[in-house]
């Protein structure tokens, strides 16, 4: 189960790319979900791919192998009822 208080997300230019990414990541037996895009992100489609933060590198490699482009990665954290979304860098 992905930690709902602290996780990684990948944004995509289209929902179709998000769905294609989900299929690739699930195929690789890695946990992920498509969830609504956080309001803090202005780029991308309406859906983002939620993953374990520790899996982000592996997920990006999978997407790169299948030539699925993304609109950036973010770290999402909930603390004291506040949600922060920050660009993620390895």
């Amino acid at each position, binding site marked *: 189960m992905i930690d709902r208080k602290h996780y990684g997300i990948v944004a995509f230019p*289209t929902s179709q790319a998000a769905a294609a990414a989900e*299929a690739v990541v699930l195929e690789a037996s890695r946990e992920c979900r498509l969830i609504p895009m956080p309001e803090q992100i202005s780029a991308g489609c309406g859906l983002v791919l939620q993953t374990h933060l520790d899996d982000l590198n592996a997920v990006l490699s999978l997407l790169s192998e299948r030539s699925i482009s993304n609109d950036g990665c973010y770290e999402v954290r909930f603390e004291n009822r506040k949600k922060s979304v920050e660009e993620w860098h390895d």
Partner: protein
Amino acid sequence: MTELYYFDNSATTLKKPAAVAEAVYHAIADGQLGNPARGSHSASLNALRLTEALRRKTAVLFGGPDAANVAFTANATASLNLVLKGLLTPADHIITTVTEHNAVLRPLYQLEEQGAAISFVGVDEFGTLHYPDFSRLLRPDTRAVMVNHASNVTGNAADLEWIGSFCREHGLIFIVDASQSAGVLDIDMVKQHIDVLCFTGHKSLYGPQGTGGICLGDRPLAFVPVVTGGSGFHSFDKQYPTQMPTLFEAGTQNVHGLAGLSAGLDYIGQKGLAAISLQLKELTLRFHDQIKDIPGIILYGSFASDVARAPVVSLNLEGWDSGDLSDALFMDYGIAVRPGAHCAPLIHQTFGTEKTGMVRFSFSSFNTLEEIDYAAKSLRQLAEEG
């Protein structure tokens, strides 16, 4: 009720694989398919996954470079309008052919009214494209070539590889109307250098009516969105997104219909396109062989065994109007065919059949040899009775 012998498959296939009807039924009855890309709940995501899987199948069928380059529309007419009006401008010269359907011609005529120029490649006495015309018609402002893969009147197929190479050589955009060939003839967008392929789902792909699409090739093209509206994202932008496939998919998709189309593509995959193609050619030539010597018959197109074609046989009987002949076939023999001009005015002008029209028999993989023989025998009887 008298049995219906259906030979109007170029208009729409009447008999579909059972799995197509079941898929549409379950798409609604199971209550699991919502509006794709409109949320992260299971119903919305189920619909999104269904459409994405269908994009992948479609890209494979057409040899398209990328599933993301496949967009779904209501039919080939919608696809052609979205493409021609979204891509071409009043400054462009377009080369097309006299075999085109009004789904191509009328959008082009609208562009012509705005200033665009159109030139037409002709055909020989058998309806085969006159290929030297492509070079002859080329102008400095020529931007695109628009051809149908197979004529809906003669069934004869264009040599897409030749035309695609011509387009690449001269830097032209190559647009193909595959209404009569998708699911019948092999299409390889990469090998044939096709930039845009427009298709319908309800003919030889055996999907429900109200399905179709656009498949883009590997060269980037700048389209203006023709139909705009909700996209599910970028909701605060005034401009509609131009990413594929959203570019052509404003509003809610026909997910229930696409579930059926997906089952239609599965049917083609299981049966094999090559096997279907061979079967349809056999049916067509068997029919042709049995009717070619009927006194007074006039046949249109080339029936040489080495000519690629869609399963279409268009004909006239001397002394008959095509409407009267088709009605007699229906009333006396329960045979369903299509008379008239088939929405393809230029090829009828070429053959001089503007007034009489033609009677078109068109077959599907659900037609049997017995049905073909019955149709040929019935036509002969009518001709002999006068």
